[in-house]
């Protein structure tokens, strides 16, 4: 299907390794609009909005930051920690804004299942509804995310 030149350029950026190793799309053959539509629909079926999800992710990250890399108890079932590196992550969408390289790991204590996200992921979900393509290192499955953070 024909896409506008802006969408084509965005897709090119997302697939390249210029911003992050391996790009944002993994091995997913779908276009970025298809991925976003599918994930938003999945999220809606689970009964959540991207605002709810993003603000909860930010809440967990904010709780973990002061512990500078050590595990912190978020609530009864889960703990989280952050790892930070120097440098900035640039959002592939054409707007201003840089994000620190901070990775939050949230773990369910009982099952020891953990999920990771970066500050950029929170922004991509909140502003663009983008959970990254399947196969990407930081792809977040909506279902897993909901189970881990709510």
């Amino acid at each position, binding site marked *: *299907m*024909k896409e*506008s030149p802006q969408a084509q350029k965005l897709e090119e950026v997302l697939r390249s390794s210029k911003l992050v190793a391996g790009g944002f799309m993994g091995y997913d053959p779908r276009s970025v609009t298809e991925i976003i539509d599918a994930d938003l*629909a999945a999220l809606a079926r689970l009964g959540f909005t991207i605002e709810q999800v993003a603000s909860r992710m930010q809440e967990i990250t904010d709780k973990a930051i002061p512990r500078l890399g050590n595990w912190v108890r978020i609530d009864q079932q889960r703990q989280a920690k952050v790892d930070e590196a120097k440098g900035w992550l640039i959002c592939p969408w054409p707007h201003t804004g840089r994000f620190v390289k901070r990775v939050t790991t949230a773990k369910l204590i009982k099952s020891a299942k953990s999920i990771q996200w970066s500050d950029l992921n929170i922004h991509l979900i909140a502003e663009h509804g983008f959970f990254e393509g399947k196969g990407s290192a930081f792809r977040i499955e909506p279902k897993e995310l909901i189970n881990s953070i709510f």
Partner: protein
Amino acid sequence: MNIETEMSQAFVVCISAIFTQNILLSYFLGLCPFIGVSREIKTAFGLGLAVIFVMTSTSLLNWLAYHYVLEPLGLHFFRFILFIIIIAAFVQFIEMVIDRYSPTLYQNLGVFLPLITVNCAILGASLFMVIRDYSFIVTIGYGLGSGIGWFLAIIAMAGIRQRLSNERIPQGLQGAGITLIIAGIMALAFIGFTGVLQ
């Protein structure tokens, strides 16, 4: 025919090309970029303007090529190939010129030009111009009208889709599915214009 009747015919043809014989909603030409680029009003606007410009100019260029090259040599059947070649060359040339003389215009409009070369509505307008045997002045009206009609359709679609962006659409219908359904409903609505022109 004298100039005045030609001009009034051109005007009628223009209006009919916009409403009653909309090249997209009545003849279903140019659907591919219509579905692909109608997510946002801003991009649809740029693409639509580029289509108006290219459609008008190429219809005229093709009219000249048909009546002064193909007809005298009896090579009417070559119109398909020739029109496409002319459209492609024209778009390339214009892109170069715009990039050189107005980078701002290039950013807003020029980036859509390569997308338009393969828009079948452009070729369609030229072919209709031949079939209906329009004169040069009427072709101006026709090219302009078809372009404006296409522009209207994509703007309307973009407006509708922007409103739909927050709605829950069944998974099977997302993207192209719901867009085609909307296009069908819009086409039905435009049928309401039949009979406006006598």
